[in-house]
């Protein structure tokens, strides 16, 4: 300790006691901020920034991002929780809370003179046992069991949105994932586009089997609505540009310049003409439409040529939409006019433009066999749109996780109660020596989560835990009914959590807690990296 001081007189050194105190306090601090968030009866947080900017969130992940955490311990905990979100899409709040509970329980034993190493050892045992127990506790799901997948989506959505809205979004979320799912391929959630419109009520949110683009045609004469449309998805520049290779135009008279410009222009016109030729080739019957959706630009003259043929041309489409379009409508995206052929075209039953104030939207709908879709979120304000979007994103992840795991875990705190009892009754007896204390602390910490659920719903935490414990002793799987405060069967109520979320939480929380407990010394030397 003093040796550091000799090397750098400015260094600050904290001994073990102070370091532990700091770590436990930081964990408790985060725990206190996040605890009221948990569950379907938690609070929504309104964050008012220094400039009066307002953010509304119920999501632990968003909350952590907005808190400007500076305490190094808290940063470490927050990073673990954010990693949890990256991997599983949910469980940020639970992870922070579990770490906080683990630190709190450890503190009790440490105050009685127990060495942190002993607790950490116990946590390690308990972690392994709890993970094993989880494998036995889970319930298998087959990909076709729509009802149970709906339950997973609903459980996730209800923690972020009010019940009616959550229930209405449930089917949208489930259908979206089932649409993009292809047998034997991993699910790519990016194939679900989330598009929002500030409009009407939040209950108008719907699933579009197809695509919604946030731009429209840039030519007044282009059709606003096409039925039975061929879709050409391309990445071909249809605008006049200066030649690529040459360092500029070399000309000696205005006439020569005109000719050069005309020659450049002719190249672009030829490309447009090839597209028009293709249109004439495929649209033999009347009533068939043709749409060009281009990732590059289309200049006014090219638009004009297309408009004269009755072709709808959209320019500067999102890169990701190129992929989505071919998945939704079929066909393939082309990068040069040479590849143009009837086979590359996709098809949509309807393509129409929707104008909302300054914004234009193009709907590509009514497609035969979509593997990409759009959730069109409608809401009255930016805040509600953001809320719904976050919730839907989490819901999509929950459904995907459930399909991926092939299993779910009964929710409403059922796992935590059962695991705690298992640790107390079985594991504690198997572990030898003082590590038993760590196992007991872990079990207590797990009970912290149903306790918070009860508190947030307005019930007495102790009564609830006792009631739940009694039921578990009878061999039932029970969780907490937030509406009545009584034990309930989560399977009957249809409350399911993701296996992945629980597993990840059980893996990371004890590791972080142990690391923090085992800190011997905190040294801050050299420059202060944080500007005060």
């Amino acid at each position, binding site marked *: 300790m003093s040796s550091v001081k000799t090397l750098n007189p400015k260094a600050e050194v904290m001994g073990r006691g102070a370091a532990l105190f700091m770590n436990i306090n930081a964990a408790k601090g985060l725990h206190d901020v996040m605890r009221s968030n948990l569950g379907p009866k*938690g609070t*929504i947080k309104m964050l008012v920034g220094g*400039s009066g900017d307002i953010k509304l969130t119920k999501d632990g992940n968003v909350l952590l991002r907005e808190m400007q955490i500076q305490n190094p311990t808290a940063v470490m905990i927050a990073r673990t929780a954010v990693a949890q979100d990256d991997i599983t899409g949910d469980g940020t709040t639970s992870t922070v809370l579990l770490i906080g509970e683990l630190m709190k329980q450890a503190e009790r034993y440490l105050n009685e003179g127990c060495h942190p190493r002993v607790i950490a050892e116990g946590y390690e045992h308990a972690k392994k046992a709890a993970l094993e127990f989880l494998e036995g506790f889970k319930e298998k799901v087959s990909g076709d069991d729509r009802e149970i997948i709906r339950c997973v989506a609903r459980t996730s959505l209800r923690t972020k949105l009010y*019940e009616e809205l959550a229930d209405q979004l449930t089917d949208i979320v489930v259908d979206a994932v089932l649409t993009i799912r292809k047998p034997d391929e991993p699910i790519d959630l990016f194939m679900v586009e989330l598009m929002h419109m500030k409009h009407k009520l939040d209950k108008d949110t719907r699933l579009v089997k197809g695509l919604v683009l946030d731009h429209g045609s840039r030519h007044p004469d282009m059709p606003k609505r096409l039925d039975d449309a061929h879709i050409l998805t391309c990445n071909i520049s249809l605008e006049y540009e200066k030649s690529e290779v040459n360092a500029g135009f070399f000309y000696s008279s205005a006439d020569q310049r005109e000719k050069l410009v005309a020659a450049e222009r002719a190249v672009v016109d030829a490309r447009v003409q090839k597209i028009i030729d293709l249109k004439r080739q495929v649209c033999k019957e009347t009533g068939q439409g043709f749409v060009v959706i281009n990732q590059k630009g289309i200049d006014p003259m090219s638009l004009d040529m297309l408009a004269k043929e009755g072709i709808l041309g959209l320019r500067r489409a999102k890169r990701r939409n190129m992929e989505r379009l071919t998945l939704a409508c079929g066909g393939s995206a082309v990068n040069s006019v040479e590849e143009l052929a009837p086979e590359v075209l996709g098809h949509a039953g309807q393509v129409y433009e929707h104008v909302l104030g300054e914004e234009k939207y193009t709907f590509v709908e009514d497609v035969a066999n979509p593997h990409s879709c759009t959730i069109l979120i409608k809401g009255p*304000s930016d805040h509600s749109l953001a809320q719904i979007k976050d919730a839907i994103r989490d819901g999509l992840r929950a459904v995907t996780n459930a399909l991926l795991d092939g299993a779910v875990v009964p929710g409403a705190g059922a796992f935590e109660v059962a695991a705690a009892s298992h640790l107390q009754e079985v594991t504690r007896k198997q572990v030898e020596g003082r590590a038993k204390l760590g196992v007991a602390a872990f079990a207590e910490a797990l009970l912290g989560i149903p306790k918070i659920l009860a508190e947030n719903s307005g019930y007495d935490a102790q009564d609830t835990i006792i009631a739940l414990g009694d039921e578990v002793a009878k061999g039932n799987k029970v969780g907490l009914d937030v509406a009545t405060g009584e034990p309930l069967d989560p399977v009957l109520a249809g409350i399911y959590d993701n296996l992945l979320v629980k597993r990840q939480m059980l893996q990371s929380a004890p590791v972080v807690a142990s690391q923090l407990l085992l800190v011997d010394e905190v040294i801050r030397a050299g420059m202060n990296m944080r500007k005060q």
Partner: protein
Amino acid sequence: MVAGEVITIQAGSFANFTGAHYWNFQDELLGLSEVQETGYTAAQIDPDVLFTQTETRQGQPIYTPRLVLFDLSGSLGGASQSSLDGSGRGVPAVTTWIGPVAVHRADPVPRSRFVQQLELEPEEEPPGPSTSQETSDTYGAIADAARELDSEGSVQSWTDFLKVRLHPRSVALLPGVWQGAADFSGFGHGRGALGSDEAREDALDRIRCFAEECDSLQGFQYFADDLSGFGHFSYELLQMMQDDYARSPVLLFALRPSLAETPAQQATASRQRRLSEAVSMAYLSGVSSLYVPLAPPVNLPCIRWQPGNVFHASALCAMVVDTTTLPYRLARTPRPGPLGVPTGHCDLHSLAELLATSRQNNLTAAFAEVPCPDVPDAHAAAAAADARTGDASSSAWPFTMQRAFSWTPGIPVDVEERLAESVVLRGAQRGGRPLHADEAAQALDAALLQEGGRCVRHRCVVPQALPIPLPFPHIFLDDCSGSSHGGRSNGITSGVNGVRSASSHQQRPADGPASLPVLSRLCASPAAADVAKTQLECFEGLVSSGHGRAILQGWGYSEDDIAEIKERLESTASAFDHEGDF
């Protein structure tokens, strides 16, 4: 015919400070073009190149910059996003949750008095002469508040002096990276800011939305605070943009608040700065069409500014940026004004082609004279040029060299060899009076001839001087020696066209010039290779030291990255070697 739109991208705090000044200049021009006596000259610069016209929610047309800006969370100071784009404010109703609501309130951050006064000003001038007193009162209050900005510490954020309304899609703050809380002071700290798919998509989408509106996109002008984490951020962003906008040129200004590190800085900070400069050169010059490092020189004649004050430094940078970007912002078919027609319109693509003389090294130096001294009589200049051929030592410096300073570190203003140059002279004056464009052009040609040294040159003469907006630091000296012509030779006109965004034509208080003549030159020179060589040596030295390596590792750069940076620097350093054979 369409304007040939340019999209502006700003990344990082100092870039946004500079950008705020830049947009204030544009706003001033818009104001001037609405007034009859100044309108013709001001309208020769086409606002449609930089601005897009949208409607407010009330259906009024409004000009907003075609701009995407990136900054850290919490960097907007007292301004909320909604106050920048003019959308409504107010406590939102919680419509998605019926449970309890917990409110957490941060301490309010004060906004500058200037912005507050600006908000008080009515949008539309009420008609009738009875209100003229009122208008002048508001104007006075705004002017007072603007003057206050110059006092120490009153500008906390670029939002404190920006008077242009932004597009709702313009402001992008990096989520979770907070100003002050996160370390974002070195080039590599921005690695990972575009790490997630969502962040990437959001950034590209903002640009795409503006690009989708453009009928004939000229290209991008990119203001980068490249020595901060936004350096690497810009590298990643520009790399992604190459896919969609492969043929659109990118004019990149690498903006720095000071030419070199200040001696007072800690050793670590200065090491980090040197590394950032080297990596910026290696990475950013590769993803841009022209790479222009720009920093204000400390000792400028006629200007006294406080080094270290970002409000001052960014104002200086913005003056040069505004002038060098003039050629592609001119109206294609300008209407003649009382001072003639501007000459030298040139689109961004041609400008980039002209100055990018080497594919491996597109570092372009910026030289400027702010304010530009009096333009001599064309005959006198011609005579001086003649005299030079006879007796070089006796002739005076041409006006183009009198107060010229290099704003690009590493390249001196009298660099030996020039390959290509773009010279812009705006608002030229003689004896305190604005000069006709033709006369100014003649004088400029004569002076350039007198300088000697031939290269491919593009010259652009614009009658419109640089209009100085109200919220501008008071850095101009009233009395300026060293000029050879008498009278008001400092080249500063006071109170001639003191018009503030069409609010009224009041006489400007005598504490600052209303407009300035500026001469700027962008120059491609083989000396750029020497800059690269210096950077390479510096980089190699630092990499072999433990400290330097620690910084690079802190940025998350692997051995491969370091090797790649070296390779790129070597390639830029040898860019002009083969030409030595001539």
